[in-house]
Each structure stands twice: as C-alpha cells, then as structure tokens.
C-alpha cells in the first residue's frame, strides 16, 4: 500500500481527498488502481507529472518505476494561477 498525494486541481475527481492509498508495485499499477476507483482522473493524468521520493519518474523508469510500500508519491499537474 502506497499513499499518493493528490494535488488540489485533481481533488474534484477524487471526492476532495488530499491523499489516497493505492495498491501496486509500479507507478503504472498505482495509477491504474486510482483510475479504477476514480475514473474522472483518467483525462487528467496525462498532464500530471509523477514524483517518487522527490524524483520525476520521467528521469527514472517512467510508468514502470517501482514503488515500495511507504514511498512518497506525488502527482503534480501544471497550475497557471498567479493572480
């Protein structure tokens, strides 16, 4: 079980949850688990960066990046707001 941090712009799709537990050994598994429970996330995820232990998974093994129980996983979509 890994806890995934949900950014504010994705909380409408997750019933307002700030963090969600997810099952899986890789980032892909975690995201599949989340979208199976929160299908509205699916459209958003392609625009969100994923960080495991503070590292962008694009610089690791992408969606195949392994996660361990207790790993810190952060979803991060772009936010433009500044005003």
């Amino acid at each position, binding site marked *: 079980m890994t806890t995934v941090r949900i950014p504010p712009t994705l909380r409408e799709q997750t019933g307002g949850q700030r963090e969600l537990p997810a099952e899986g050994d890789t980032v892909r598994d975690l995201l599949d688990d989340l979208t199976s429970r929160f299908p509205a996330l699916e459209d*958003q995820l392609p625009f969100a960066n994923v960080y495991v232990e503070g590292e962008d998974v694009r610089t690791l093994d992408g969606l195949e990046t392994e996660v361990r129980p207790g790993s810190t996983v952060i979803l991060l*979509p772009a936010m433009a*707001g500044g*005003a």
Partner: protein
Amino acid sequence: MPTYRELLQQVRAEIAEIDAARGRELVDRGEAIIVDVREQDEWDEGHIPGAVHISRGNLESRIERAAPDPTQPVVLYCSVGNRSAFAAKTLEEMGYEDVVSLAGGFTDWKRNGHPVELHSGLDAPRRARYSRHLLIPEVGEQGQLRLLDSKVLLIGAGGLGSPASLYLAAAGVGRLGIVDADVVDESNLQRQIVHSTERLGEAKVESAKRTIEALNPDVQVVAYKERLTSENVERILADGWDVIVDGADNFPTRYLVNDASVWHGIPVVHGSIYRFEGQVTVFKPGAGPCYRCLFPTPPPPELAPSCAEGGVLGVLPGVIGSLQANEALKLALGIGEPLVGRLLLFDALSAEFNEVKLRRDPDCPVCGEHPTITDYIDYVEFCAGTREPA
C-alpha cells in the same frame, strides 16, 4: 596612570609600523588585507583602493569576517597612524600574527601621491533605510549597491506580484518593471495587497507604481499597461532585466515568458497558486531546466481551473509571492542556493513544504540540445490544445 601620549608611545613601541611606500608595495601585491579603521564619514571622503572599512569600535567583532585566517598579513590604517596603532595591538592580542600599522596613516598616503578611491557608496539616508541589510555580511554595502543597481521585471501585479513587488521595492531593487493590462477590481482586494479600495478602477500598474513609490522613492517603476504577448515581449525585454518574476495567471503567458527567458538568458522566478497550494521554482537558463522541461504540454483549459474559477486563500499568494521575492533577491545578490532544479510545494492547510527535483530535458523543444521551437509561437492556440506540441 599613563597619559594618552605615553600610552600611544608604549603601544607604538610594541607593534610593527610601515611607511606609506612600504604600504603601497603591500597594497599592490594584494596579499595583505588592508583595513581602514576610521569612522564612516572619513571613509566616505576617500580611502585606499581595495581596503575594507571596519571602524575602530567594531574591530573586534567584525575583523574575523574580513580576515578569517590569523596568519594572513593585515595592514591597518587610520588618518595619521594613532588609532591604527591601538587597533594593531588589539589584533595581536586576538592572535593575528602579521599585523602592521601604517605610520602617518591616510594623510601620508595621500601626501605621497598614492591612489585614493573616492567613496561611491550609500549616502546617510540610504544607510539608515537599508541598515538591517547592511548588518548582514552576505548583503552589506556592496550587496545593497548591487540591489539598487538591479532590474527586476514582474509579470502580473496581482496575487503574486503584489507581495513580490512590495518586498523587492522595500529591499531597494532599483528598477521594477510591471506588466499587467488589468484594472483594480473589488474581487482583487482579498489578496492583492499592493492595491487598495481607493484605487478601484485604476490600472493595476499605476496603482502598484503609486504604492511602491510611496514605500521607497529609490525605486523606479516602469509600468507596462499591457498583456505580455509575442508582439510586445521583445520591446519589453529590450529595457534590460536581470530577473523575471512570473506571477501570470494563465498558461499562454507562462510558456511565452519561458521561451523569451531562455532565448534571452534571463532567470525566471516562477510561482503559481491554487486554493490552498502553491509552487515556486527558479528556471535559470543554462543552469537548470525550463518550464517546458517541467510541463512539456499545457493541460487543456477545461482541466486547468484558474484562481478566478477555483478560488484561492488570500494569504497563499502572500507566502508564495514572498518566496519569489526571496529568490529574486538571492539571484540579484548572487548569494545562497536559489531553487534551480528544485520545485518547492507549499500546502497551506497542512502547513507543509515539500520539494521535488526538476531535471533538464535534453529533448526539450526550447532549451534542449536540438531545439525545435526557436521563435515565438501562437501561445493561445498552443494552450488551447488545438496544436500538437512540437
């Protein structure tokens, strides 16, 4: 009890003295630390080039900063060589091994035709205004002069631009450019603290200019009452900016700022906010990733609500905009570790900061090894998702 004359004579007998000619040799060789122990007003009227100023009264507390190594040669001088004799005695007692006093002091130095550097530093009112900066070794007078000479461009005079511009102005950043096409609206005042109720309906750049100039007359505000576009960005950047503080409220402007900054080699202090959370980072061309390395493709508008649509806690831009000012000041001063390659995340509800690493993308279309975007594009269209990202 010895008289002053007797005491001076006794001290001069115990310390080493050099004359102006020997002093000149040491100054030219550049190995010794030259310390002027006179008062500020004497220093201001001229001093030995390359000298540091530590008035006699501050000598014990500040010498270690100027001369951390007690084996390094130190030359002390004052106006005629008396105060520097006592100062030399003090430094010897503190353990400095190679201390000399310049006999005849600055007076003899000038009389012998050696070079004099006229003080071009802060005047008395500025020393008072920036006194808390002057006390910090990493800033000091040189740093403050650097700030007064620096030029920061703010994109947006809104939530982030308000605190950022106020703190940069208070810090004495000499020139602040502000780009914003909007007028002050009632819904802005819950967070945009550079404006006020009496400015409703006024152009934001004019309102910000008035507030900033009232706060600090040292700051020159350049107001651009326009939205940053591909058409005006070159004209605005041609005014010469050291740092850009990006507090825009939309994706097209974010990507435009990024591309322009990469091509001009200007660091961008990026901040963004939504509801209770904010992000800050520094995109420094050549030293770290750019905005496109982080977010190659903007989310479609329907998936990326703005603060106008989703709301924002009023104090949140205060936190994030202040962090942006902090980064901009560090970049202007050349101190500390700016947030290059690091994205700082702040969650106001949990009062937590998180940090993730950002890496340069070698395939980035703008800052990568083989860029495919080399001129301004239609950013509105790019962000509307009707055009595939390159």
